[in-house]
């Protein structure tokens, strides 16, 4: 079976319970077990080939440009871990079937479990370190789900988050490490990397890569100081703990160290970092385990300790040590999984995992007792069980290790670790199973059904068998996997009895010491309880809480919703970047002469400056500010005229008046004065920013006006061809409707959308809280009588038709003289506005039948259709045609297709302006305006007629 298929099977298995989520535990368990079993079978079929020294590979291109490919390999190491993952996985699946209660959603559980299994299997079968990273992080994610499976338990949630954060951190570091490693080796394929030992170890990036990768491995394998997450992950259901923390997740780190052992090990850096970390972890965790009251917690720390042991062995960097490490991986998986399942059974049957509440289960649960005791004794390293064998090997390797010139330090510390290990193992047996029976167990304990104990029993049998016949039971596996780790053929000699030697003596000492320590257990517990030990969880919580608070504080203060700050940052950024860009470039100095200054423009300039200053000074008096804005707009328009831009002046001034009307309509409901609510310092700062920005922008304008174009402008072409090709004398208008008609098309769309937005907002406001507020509106100022004065009404009756004629004129002449659809639209809008002002909105509205929505839509479509029309001539959008048409007896017209476009502009402008006014007026009417029946309030002729 292809390695890729083997790796994929668990994921397929994960889908099954996910799809069959309602079908209950049995279906889910069976489907998962089937998938696992097939995968295991597939793996085992490769054993002969691997025994023969082959490496089975499968390669699929995924992302070749990155070097991330779905390459899989099965060698000895992969085989060992694969068998552990799938074999123990199978047992866990069976065990979980009986462990989970009816209320637990089993489908979800099995889906997560298989996801995790797949991720683990992916790690060990990957032949590409980037692919390995993918699976690596997937284990973090799936374990997050598994640990947090019982959502209602806070410990579960916190443990899950902690596990994810810590292993996630390591995983992230590893990404960097792997990328560096791959870059040095020139490939991300493990096969290639394993060939690049010299290059890697000679590279200046070796140490960073090593550190980063080890950070990943250590966090995953819960090595000191990252050991704290593992015990908290015990909040997971026991099958999860048993799986994650005996055979799989925590072993991923070990796997990685073993996998990269040929290229990374053998340097002093490797030895001191890895071996020391392993040693410290082994001793420290074992010491902590002695004092744990929770069975699973005790086992968890023991796991940490054993992982330390294996890490230390890998750290030694010798082939013999690697063999020992591999062997212990197997042994640890068997006895630890059995122990976790035992703990789960005890928890399941008695209702508690607290050692203090247990004891005397020996007779009540004889089967469990037998299994637990065998596994625990193996963990203690007592012959003839398998734990003894690998511990002997470990002690032997420790005696060979020299730490900073000190030949016995490692051995002594390792023995101490073994001693603690004996102590907690014996404690597990002694305090749970021995002693008097109690009558206060939460549930009445008895042995569980066969389903629950069969899996640990099988493992216990393995423990014994491997212990008794190591060479035949496990020798082959150790051989192939150790060969894969070291990269050279290994032929380990595993035997129960090695003769009387130093390791045996150390082992005996550890046994004796452990027993003594157990005897002292109670006073030690008391003593330890008296000392305030730093709680890793508390520290982690404190750090994350502090980080969360700091992030909250920082985010809240920085992004505090102040627009002033946002805009100040904007202005300063622009000014600083602009200054910097200018000062680092070259400027030849002024090349254009200045225009002479005439007195009248000077007056206009003075008016503009004074009005602007006053505007700022008086901006709090809002109406005054508006009047001043009007002056500024007037002056700007005049300057456009003076500087040869009549079209601009027309547009600016007509936009001006509509803007004023809009602002006044809005201001009716807004406060008439702006209160001061910024401090002097802020105002000073703002004034500074404003001054700097103004100076900068003014200077930029000055520099531009005094410099020549570096290249001839494209507008020369437009001046030359406006009439010839565009059919118009007014070049600005030809640019607008022809050269750059597409811009104008966009521009009227903007206007239309603006009106639609205003309309939609009005609807929303009227229907919401504002509508209610408006219905109870009280005007904040005294109001005069006579809303629709007679004189205005009469004059408007003349002005409206005249303005319509003027609008038509401006529209028609636009192509050749200043004007055009936009200005015409504004003129007509302004005329209509004057009618609305004279006789009121409702009265006027009733008398006209135009729908402004339709006007906008028609405008945009008219412009669009004019453009689309060109398609039928096989020309691009907006290609124009023109000609002079002389209808008999009537005005000579230029009929340009651009005029259709301009008509669209006209309609859109009128529609948009009027729709916006309509919306504002609706707000006013909601606020209790009355609707007049007559065009004017006072009409003496009416009385006369009566």
């Amino acid at each position, binding site marked *: 079976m292809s390695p890729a298929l083997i790796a994929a099977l668990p994921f397929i298995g994960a889908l099954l319970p996910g799809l069959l989520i309602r079908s209950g535990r049995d279906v889910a368990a069976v489907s998962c077990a089937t998938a696992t079993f097939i995968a295991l079978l597939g793996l085992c079929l490769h054993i002969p080939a691997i025994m023969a020294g082959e490496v089975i590979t499968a390669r699929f291109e995924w992302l070749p440009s990155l070097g991330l490919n779905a390459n899989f390999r099965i060698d000895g190491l992969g085989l060992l871990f694969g068998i552990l993952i799938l074999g123990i996985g199978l047992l866990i699946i069976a065990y979980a079937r009986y462990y989970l209660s009816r209320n637990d959603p089993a489908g979800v559980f099995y889906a997560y479990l298989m996801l995790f299994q797949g991720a683990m299997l992916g790690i060990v079968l990957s032949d590409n370190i980037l692919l390995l990273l993918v699976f690596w992080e997937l284990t973090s994610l799936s374990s997050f789900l598994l640990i947090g499976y019982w959502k209602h338990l806070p410990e579960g949630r916190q443990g899950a988050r902690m596990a994810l954060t810590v292993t996630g951190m390591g995983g992230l570091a590893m990404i960097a490490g792997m990328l560096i490693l791959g870059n040095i080796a020139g490939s991300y394929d493990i096969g290639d990397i394993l060939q690049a030992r010299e290059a890697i170890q000679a590279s200046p990036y070796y140490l960073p890569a090593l550190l980063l990768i080890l950070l990943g491995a250590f966090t995953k394998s819960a090595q000191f100081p990252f050991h704290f997450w593992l015990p908290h992950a015990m909040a997971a259901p026991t099958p999860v703990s048993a799986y994650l923390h005996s055979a799989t997740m925590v072993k991923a780190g070990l796997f990685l160290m073993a996998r990269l052992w040929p290229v990374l090990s053998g340097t002093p850096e490797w030895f001191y970092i890895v071996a020391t970390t392993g040693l410290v972890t082994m001793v420290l965790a074992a010491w902590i385990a002695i004092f744990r009251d929770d069975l699973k917690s005790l086992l968890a720390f023991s796991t940490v300790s054993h992982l330390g042991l294996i890490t230390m062995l890998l750290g030694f960097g010798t082939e013999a040590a690697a063999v020992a490490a591999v062997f212990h991986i197997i042994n640890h998986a068997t006895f630890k999984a059995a122990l976790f399942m035992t703990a789960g059974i005890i928890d399941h049957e008695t209702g508690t995992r607290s050692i203090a509440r247990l004891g005397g289960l020996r007779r009540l649960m004889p089967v469990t007792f037998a299994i637990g005791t065998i596994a625990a004794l193996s963990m203690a390293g007592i012959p003839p069980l398998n734990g003894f064998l690998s511990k002997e090997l470990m002690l032997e390797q420790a005696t060979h290790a020299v730490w900073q010139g000190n030949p016995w330090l490692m051995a002594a510390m390792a023995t101490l670790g073994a001693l603690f290990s004996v102590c907690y193992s014996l404690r597990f047996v002694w305090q749970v199973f021995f002693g008097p029976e109690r009558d206060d167990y939460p549930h009445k304990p008895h042995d569980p059904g066969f389903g629950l104990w069969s899996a640990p029993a099988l493992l216990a049998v393995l423990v014994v068998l491997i212990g008794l016949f190591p060479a035949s039971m496990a020798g082959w596996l150790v051989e192939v996997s150790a060969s894969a780790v070291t990269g050279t053929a290994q032929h380990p000699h595993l035997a129960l009895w090695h003769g009387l030697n130093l390791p045996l003596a150390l082992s005996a000492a550890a046994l004796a010491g452990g027993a003594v320590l157990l005897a002292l257990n109670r006073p030690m517990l008391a003593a330890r309880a008296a000392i305030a030990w730093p709680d890793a969880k508390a520290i982690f919580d404190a750090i994350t809480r502090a980080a969360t608070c700091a992030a909250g504080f920082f985010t809240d203060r920085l992004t505090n919703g102040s627009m002033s700050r946002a805009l100040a940052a904007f202005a300063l950024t622009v000014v600083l970047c602009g200054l910097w860009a200018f000062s680092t470039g070259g400027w030849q100095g002024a090349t254009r002469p200045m225009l002479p200054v005439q007195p009248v423009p000077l007056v206009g300039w003075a008016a503009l400056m004074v009005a602007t200053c006053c505007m700022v000074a008086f901006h709090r008096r809002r109406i005054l500010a508006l009047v001043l804005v009007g002056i500024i707009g007037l002056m700007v328009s*005049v300057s456009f*005229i003076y500087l040869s831009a009549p079209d601009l002046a027309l547009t600016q001034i007509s936009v001006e008046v509509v803007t004023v009307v809009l602002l006044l309509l809005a201001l009716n409901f807004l406060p008439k004065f702006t209160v001061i609510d910024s401090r002097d310092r802020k105002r000073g700062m703002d004034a500074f920013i404003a001054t700097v920005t103004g100076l900068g922008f003014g200077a930029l304008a000055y520099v531009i006006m005094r410099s020549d174009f570096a290249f001839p402008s494209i507008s020369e072409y437009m001046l030359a061809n406006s009439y010839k090709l565009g059919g118009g004398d007014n070049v600005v208008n030809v640019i607008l409707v022809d050269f750059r008609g597409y811009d104008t098309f966009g521009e009227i769309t903007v206007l239309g959308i603006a009106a639609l937005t205003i309309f939609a907002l009005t609807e929303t406001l009227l229907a919401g809280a504002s509508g209610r507020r408006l219905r109870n509106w009280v005007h904040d100022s005294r109001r005069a009588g006579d809303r629709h004065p007679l004189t205005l009404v009469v004059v408007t009756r003349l002005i409206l038709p005249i303005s319509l004629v003027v609008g038509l004129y401006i529209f028609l002449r636009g192509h050749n003289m200043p004007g055009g659809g936009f200005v015409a639209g504004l003129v007509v809008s302004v005329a209509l506005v004057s009618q609305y002002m004279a006789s009121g909105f409702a009265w006027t509205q009733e008398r006209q039948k135009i729908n402004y929505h339709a006007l906008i839509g028609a405008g945009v479509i008219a412009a669009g259709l004019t453009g689309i029309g060109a398609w039928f001539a096989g020309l691009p959008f907006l290609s124009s045609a023109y000609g002079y048409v002389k209808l008999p007896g009537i005005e000579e017209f230029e009929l340009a297709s651009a005029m259709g476009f301009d008509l669209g502009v006209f309609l859109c402008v009128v529609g948009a302006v009027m729709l916006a006014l309509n919306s504002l*007026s609706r707000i006013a009417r909601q606020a209790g*305006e009355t609707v007049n029946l007559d065009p004017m309030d006072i009409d003496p002729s009416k009385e006369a007629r009566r």
Partner: protein
Amino acid sequence: MIAYALFFAYGCFGLALLFCLYRVVFAPGLSDRVLALDTMAINVIALLTLFGIDKGTTMYFEASLMFAMVGFISTVAYAKFVLRGDIIE
């Protein structure tokens, strides 16, 4: 001769603009300011016409018409705002 006349008129209307500006800035009430703004628009129309005479162009005529229209509408709008608050009711 016309040049001197134009120069004189430019000066007059320029100065007039400044007077209006003074009244916009220093005024006892809003209505005075609106009046000053209206007068400014009228002065600007005169200036534009002078400019047209000066440069011999009729190009700026629509602008003058526009200023007249705008001056009227905005004056009425401001006044109506003072009187009623709502300018389209």
